[in-house]
Every structure is written in C-alpha cells, then in structure tokens.
C-alpha cells in the first residue's frame, strides 16, 4: 500500500491542469516507475500527496508526424512504444536506442518519456538524446500551452522548469533537426540492463561529403543536468572526422562538462568516458563499429 493521500485520473489535459493548478498538494503520476519507488522510500515529495494520473488522457501517448514533417511524441508514450515506433526508428533512431536502454522490458512497458524528463535526473537516457535533436517541450497550464526548448528544461539535480499547475504534454522535434542527420546514443553502465547510466552520450551528425556539416553532442551525468558540449560541436564543424580529430574533439568536450566524484564513479573516470564515448558514438552514427 502506497502512502499517498488520493488518486484521481484525468480524462483530458484541461482536467489534469485544473486539478494540478487548484491543489498545491497535487502531483503528477504517469507510469509510476519513478514516483511509486520514491513513495515506497517515503520521499517527502510524494508521501501524503494527491496524485493525478495522466496516462489515460486521450492523445497523450503516441508518435505523430505533421504535414511539415515535424514529429510530436506524447508525454505519456512508453519507452516500449518509442523503441518500436516506425517513425522513431526511421527518423530518430538514437531516441529509440535510448528508450531501449532503460530498465528492462517491464519498466519500458510502463515508464514514459514525459516522466523520464520531468523527474529531472541528469541520467535520464532520453533527455541527452532530445538535446541533440533541439527538441522543444510542450507545456500546458490554465492559460493554455507554450513550448520550451528542451535545453532550458532541466535546472538542477531533480529540478525542472515546471510550475505547480503545469503539465508536460509532448515533445516536438522539427524536421530540420533530424532530416539528413545520423544519431547514436551510448549508455555506459555497469550492467547491460536494469542500470542507471554512469555516463550517457548522444551525438547527432550531418555530413557534407566527408566533412562534418553539423554535429551535436549531449551528455547525461556529465554535470548536474543533461548538457550539450558546445565547444566540441564548434570545433567539429567543417572537419573530416578522422581518428585524430575525434580524439581532439573528445578532449574538448571537457570544456563544457562538470563531472564530479560520487560513490558511483570517480570524476577522473567520468571524464575519461566524456572524452572516449563521443568518439565512439560519432563512429557508430557514421556506420562504424564504434571502436574508433
């Protein structure tokens, strides 16, 4: 038995937003794979709260493409749905990889992309990937909806830019941000499944012949929030991705990261991964075996 105060289930976004806005004690629950675990460990953020279930809101789960070719992923879309979705596989393959790297099959069947983002963990596998796609997040509240760049969403460990009464409803990726790009995601963890990333590295690369036209690199667990490696991205533009260039690029990634020591991994080790994983991820994205 979980120790929350009440549970209601919204049938529309408006209903959910009203319930959340009108009750400071209300909290969102989607798949529950984070919230229920926190409740069980008697996390004050959830014990005694009024939970608002959102997974049965029509249209909140699923992947769609509009006439422009922009892609919308509902916040309640499960990791399994993302991993197996035809559009994702075709256009956003690295997001499928990230979703498929989470937990095990049972967790992926229930956990949602919205929950992965909204719980604010720097280790969230989908968050780093979405940064490379310049994704924007659709947020609803009583005054309607607005979009926010994914890179502005995470503000600190476990903290995101969502006010009481706001609901993350969708993730949007513009056609220009995936078309012509190739991406990959490497989750570095101790186990092959059921694990949290020691470091996550997402890359998205667009080639012009044998020259890098555009490169985006994002990390999870390289700082308090998922982050982009802007200096390395600038460095890569216009260069041929030779082994030597990639090695240099790996080191430049450290200019933007803020890895720290924790009992899970030493800073020096995380920094080694920060320099190595982008090289491998780029090689993988470009069709190599990743062992650059």
């Amino acid at each position, binding site marked *: *038995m979980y*120790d929350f105060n009440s549970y209601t289930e919204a049938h529309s976004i408006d209903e959910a937003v009203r319930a959340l806005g009108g009750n400071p004690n209300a909290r969102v629950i989607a798949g529950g794979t984070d919230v229920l675990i926190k409740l069980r460990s*008697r996390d004050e953020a959830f014990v005694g709260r009024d939970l608002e279930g959102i997974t049965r809101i029509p249209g909140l789960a699923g992947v769609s493409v509009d006439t422009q070719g922009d892609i919308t992923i509902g916040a309640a879309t499960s990791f399994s749905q993302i991993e197996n979705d035809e559009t994702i596989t075709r256009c956003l393959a690295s997001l499928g990889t990230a979703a498929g790297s989470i937990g*095990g099959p049972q967790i992926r069947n229930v956990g949602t992309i919205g929950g992965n983002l909204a719980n604010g963990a720097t280790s969230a596998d989908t968050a780093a990937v979405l940064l490379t796609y310049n994704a924007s997040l659709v947020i609803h509240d009583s005054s309607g909806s607005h979009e926010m760049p994914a890179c502005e969403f995470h503000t600190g460990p476990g903290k995101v830019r969502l006010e009481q009464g706001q609901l993350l409803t969708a993730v949007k990726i513009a056609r220009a941000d995936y078309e012509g790009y190739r991406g990959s995601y490497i989750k*570095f963890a*101790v*186990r*092959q*499944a*059921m*694990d*949290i990333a*020691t470091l996550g590295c997402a890359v998205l690369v667009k080639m012009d012949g044998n020259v890098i036209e555009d490169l985006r690199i994002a990390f999870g667990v390289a700082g308090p929030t998922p982050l982009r490696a802007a200096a390395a991205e600038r460095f890569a533009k216009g260069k041929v991705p030779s082994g030597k260039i990639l090695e240099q690029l790996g080191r430049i990634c450290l200019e933007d990261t803020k890895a720290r020591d924790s*009992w*899970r*991994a*030493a800073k*020096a*080790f995380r920094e*080694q*991964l920060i320099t*190595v994983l982008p090289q491998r991820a780029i090689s993988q994205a470009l069709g190599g075996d990743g*062992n650059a």
Partner: protein
Amino acid sequence: MKNKVIGDSVPRWDARAKVCGRADYTADIPVKNALHGKIVRAGIAHGRVLCLDIEDALRVPGVVKILTPADLPKTKFATAGHPYSLEPGGDVYDKNILTDYVRLYGDEIAAVIAETPLAAAVAAEKVVARYEELPFYLTTEEAMADGAVELHEGVKNNILADTTASVGDVEQGFAQADHIFESEYQTQIVQHCHMENQAAVAYQDADGRWTCISSTQIPHICRRILGEALEMPWSKFRVIKPFIGGGFGNKQDVIIEPLVVAMSMAVGGRAVRLELEGEEVLAYTRVRHAIRYRSKVGVTKDGRITAWQMDAVSKTGAYASHGHSIAAKGAGILSTLYEIPNMIYRSRTVLTNTGNAGAMRGYGVPQITFAIEAMTEKICSALNMDSFEFRLKNFKKEGAPHPLNGIPMATNKVADCLTQGKAAFGWDGKMAAALGDKGGIIRRGLGVAAFSYATAVYPYSLEIAGCRLTMNQDGTVKMMVGATEIGQGSDTGLIQIAAETLGVPAEMVYAEAVTDTDIAPFDTGCYASRQIYVTGMAVAKAAQELKDKICRAAEQFYKISSQVLDIEDAYIINTTTGDRVASLGDLALYTYYDKARARTLTAEVSNNCHNNSYPMGVTFAEVEVDTQTGVVTLLSMLNAHDSGVIINPLLAEGQVEGGMGMGVGFALGEDLFYDTKTGAPLNNNLLDYKIPTAMDVPELGVLFVQPVDPYGPFGAKGLGEPPLCSPAAAIRNAVCQALGFEIDSLPLTPGKVFAAIAAHRSGGEANV
C-alpha cells in the same frame, strides 16, 4: 544392484508446482488475522541509544504495540546456524533481539506491531531515538587500532579471534626456496541477494507453544536458537519451513525469528508477520566477509612450492555471527589445494561497524581462492612457467591425508579437471587468439583458477542427519528428511538415492516441501554443501532398512526366503528364478490391512557422519578488456568439477551455472558501499547493487569428472557451494593476462580497471 536412477536427469519433484505458481513460500501461507511487524532501525553507525520516544508512533492509527529492548530478554544469543556444541568455545553469544547499543547503521532498536504493513512503516518512521554517538569503524585497520572503542565489551582491539595453523617449518621452507614472492589481495563485501526476502510469521498454537513459519535453511537449529533467545525450553517452539526462495547461506543465520515470536508473545499469541524489504536484506541481514590476505611464497626454480605463509584479516562487521570459522577455514583450503611442505596460516576476524558477515555460499573459499590463485599466476608469470604445468606439479595428490585433520582425500581429481577442462574450453585455440591481440584498444586474456573444498563440517562440528521412510498403502514411499531444500535440488537428489536403494522408480518416492521440527527427523539443515552427502547417507541407510523390512514382510506373506528376494522396478523379485513375486503395491495392502499380520513398514535412521570428502574443481575464463573504458566483457567461462558421482546431471549443471553466475557478479560488479561520513550503506538496493542480469552472464560450460568417492552415498561429494569458489579468481587472472599487469582487489569494475590502466601507463604503482 542395477543402477537405474542415480545419474538420471530426473526433473525436480517440485518443478510443476513452481512453474504454475502453486508452490507456497512463507508469505503465501494464509494465517488468520495476522498483524504486521516493522523493525525500527538505528540512524547512526555506533553509539548508545539514550532514549527512545515512541509516543508519536503509538498514535499512528492501526499501531498495536511497539517493542523496545526493555520489553525483551536480556540474554544474548548467537545467530549462526551451527549445530549446538557441548564443548566450550563454540559460537559467540553477542546478540540481543533489540539493542540499545548500536553497532551498525540500521541496527535493530525497536519494533512496531500494527494492523497493516503501511501503519507499521509510518509508525516506525515516527519513533525518535536520541543517541550518544561513538566513533565508527568501516575498515578493519581502524577497528584494530589502539584506542579504538570496543564494539563488544572485552573484545580487545576488536579482534574476535586470532589463530594460526601450521605445517612444517616455513622459515626452513623459505631457506630452501630459490624465489620468494609476496603480495597482498583484498576482497569486497558482497551479499547473497536471494530473491525471496527473509520472511516469518509466528503465532501461539492450540497447545500453547509457539509456531514460527520461516524462510530458514536451518529449522531445527532455529528452534534451539529461539529457545536460547527467548529463554524458554526449546520444545516450546515449532519451526516450519515451507518452500524457500533461495538462501545461499544468509538464511543459515537466525535473524528475524526471535523478534517475530517475541512480537506474537507481546500481542497475546495473535499471529504477527515480519517480512523484510529488499533494502533491509541487502544491508542488515548478513553479507560475505571482505578479507585482506598477505601471502609470502617460496618456490624452487623448477617450480615447486617450498613454503607458503598467509595472513588473513577478515571483516565480520558488527556481530560475530559465524565468528572466526570462515577466516580459519582458509588453512585447510590452502593446504588441500597444493602440496605445501611448510605452511603457516594466521587469520584474524575483526569487528567493524559494517554489515554483519556470516555464511555465504563458499564460506570464505571464493575469497581465499582469489588470493591463492592470483599468487599462483604471479609465480607462473615470474618463473615464465606454464599455468598448467605449475599447478599439476604442485596439486595435492589423491589419497594424501588432509594436513590439518588427517582425513585422507580419498578422491581428488583436480588434475583431471584441469586437463579435461582445458581441452573442453578450447584453451589453446583461445590463447592463440588472445596472444595475437595485444596491440589494440580491446584486449583478450585467458585465466584459470583451481579450488579445493570440503563437504560438510566433520571433524570440526557435528554431522548428523535423519531420514524417515514410510511405505504407503499403494507401495509408494513417503520420504521425510530434516534437510532443507532451498532451491538447490537436494530433495530430488535424495529421492533418487532412496529410489535407487529401494529398487523403485523415482516417481514412487515422495518428498515433502515443508520441514516441520515437530515432524521431520532431526537434521541440522542446509549448509556446507552437506545434504546430498550427509543426509544422502541417512536416506540410503533408511532405504536399505526399509527394503530389508519389505523383503522380510514378503517372506511372511509369500513364503519365499527373504534371502533370495530383491526389489526391481517396484516389484519384489525372486533372484533365484528371476520371477516377479508381487508388486510393492500388492504387498503394501497386506502390510496395512491383513487382519492378523498387518504391520506398516517404516524405517527411520539418524546418521552421524564421521567422514569428509573433498570436492575439487577448476574455472577457465576468457575476457575482453576495453583499455579505454575499463570494461571487462566475459566472453566464455567453463567450470570443471570433481564432485564425485553426479546424482542428477541436469540439476547439477544448474547448480554449477548458478554458482558461476554469482561468481561473475563477485568478480565484476558487486560491492556494498558505506558512506564514510555516516556509516550508512549507500547502495543497498538491486539497482545500485549490481547482481548480473540475463544480459551479463555469458554462455557457460560445465564439465564433471566423476570418481566414485568411497565415503559419499553412491560416490557423491558436495556440489552446492563449489561452483562459486573459483570463477572470480579465473576472471581476475584473465583480466591480468589481457592487460599484462596485476590488479589485486575485487571487484573489477570499469572504474577500477580504468584507474589501474591509467596508473600503469603513468608508470605508477601497478597494483591496485
């Protein structure tokens, strides 16, 4: 006698029930009107509880009672599941059911009894303790330092025991050596992680005694410890063990049973359930001893060991539990693996404010095997001597007496395990591939490690086992043993031993899932890989006795001398004519219902075993090491075992594979951490404590060399624990071969391997 059942892969008798969800574990057994218990745990690692405020907690709706140390007996008890000893110097009696002196973070300081699990959890959170804090020690060095506070009064420098075992004269041995090698090895704290958490329910029965249904490996021992802990005659308790979801030694300690019975006593005999959470099991039940070994070895230039000096410091945590027996066992392991003319083995067991170490599959042998076999490779590589040649030259020989207790190692096929395993593993081909792969980022390596083990605990402790066989009305046989099936398959093996002896098919012998101390014959339970061996002896003797009774009954009813009767395929056979005299079913009807002569046929044997046999074996491992990330990928692994005759190959393979899987975790990922600032455990959950998933264990090879052991039933020796003894050592040796330098501590996590590579490259200290 024809051998029909031994060596057959008979399916486990309980497989169908388990695969349908019909096997009842402790939490599945309905008990009327039960209350729920929750332990209140200390929030400091060392200190005294000055006061305990339970007022707020008592006000939580649904709370029935809160127990504190003041409510419970003051007598201390020992939790280790060892047989009771009539001689002094046995287990350490250092535990109270609840304590006002905290020795580890999470120590048990109070307990809530409530109508629901949630009410109990909420109330437990509201119990407020005020402490006088004392310095806490997470390492043995800190705990042993002069001036350190004694965790238990009178345990000087927190050294629970300090013993030395020796053979010959090491100084003389070192003088004879051409080379001396020295090194230090360290293992980590790991945990059993059985899938079923500790669970128990207790209530007062109709006769006024106390029944405790518990997931225990040692029901009969548990009963005695309940008596000791609660200061009542032992017969006042009845312990019932239903199906068990794994134990691996953790349930060889009596951890929650005294408390749950005390809870029921506190509420007038109403049933109380106590089920630990996964986090509690990981941090606050028992763990494996982390042990630091120092070895000094003398070797001649042609590769013969002349002397081995070993010093072990074992971290037992906050309480003695199994005390010194785990560290001390190492002397026998070292001296039965290799022929060491001069050996000295010192071991110290040290109390620290960390998780309480107790029995865990292998009982110290995975640790010492890591240290022995790492040193062995160091010697081979320094002498530029083949790993196989060196081992074959130095292995203890079959038939040689155990150097410390004199019992001959009647069978010892470790050399055959090495040579046959090498071929089966494809060592030479794999080695060629590994040697051709030294320049790149990803490097291959191979490793081998051998181990010695002992079956059961004779001559150090009592070895007693019981079996009762009853012929049913249709000629089938009910088998009752006090041994404890915990998943390893011993019940099915024992069925086979009974069936083979009796001359019936395995499906005619029924086992019993429940071990009930009021009903089952006395047996000390599941530990030391003893059950097929020791209980198997009792079963074989009982079966022989029943068979003799059946033949004598048949003589009476069918007028044929029992001297010429035998049983085959459940028929009584006239051996002179080869004719079937009658089926067991026909005879059984007479033995039950013949008005004049009916006597039901039962045989009960209590067997006191005065032997020991030595399971031996070797692990072969092939790894890839990513030199940029420190990731070790285990490509293949094979265990070759001499466990004597294998009673059931399919189940035996399963045991071996399971042990190898645990070995993978021990080698590469598992490590229980503590916060150096608070002493709190950091990763006591299955996300952060990394036991292998199905994606982390490679394809596993298993090979059995099967000598017929003269002591074991049908030639069998122990197999439960041996599979976990050598994998970690072999994996470590493979990693070192891949890297070309040594890493001397476990586990080999990516972070540690990378740090070692970085240190090695920068010319720093290679050993980590």
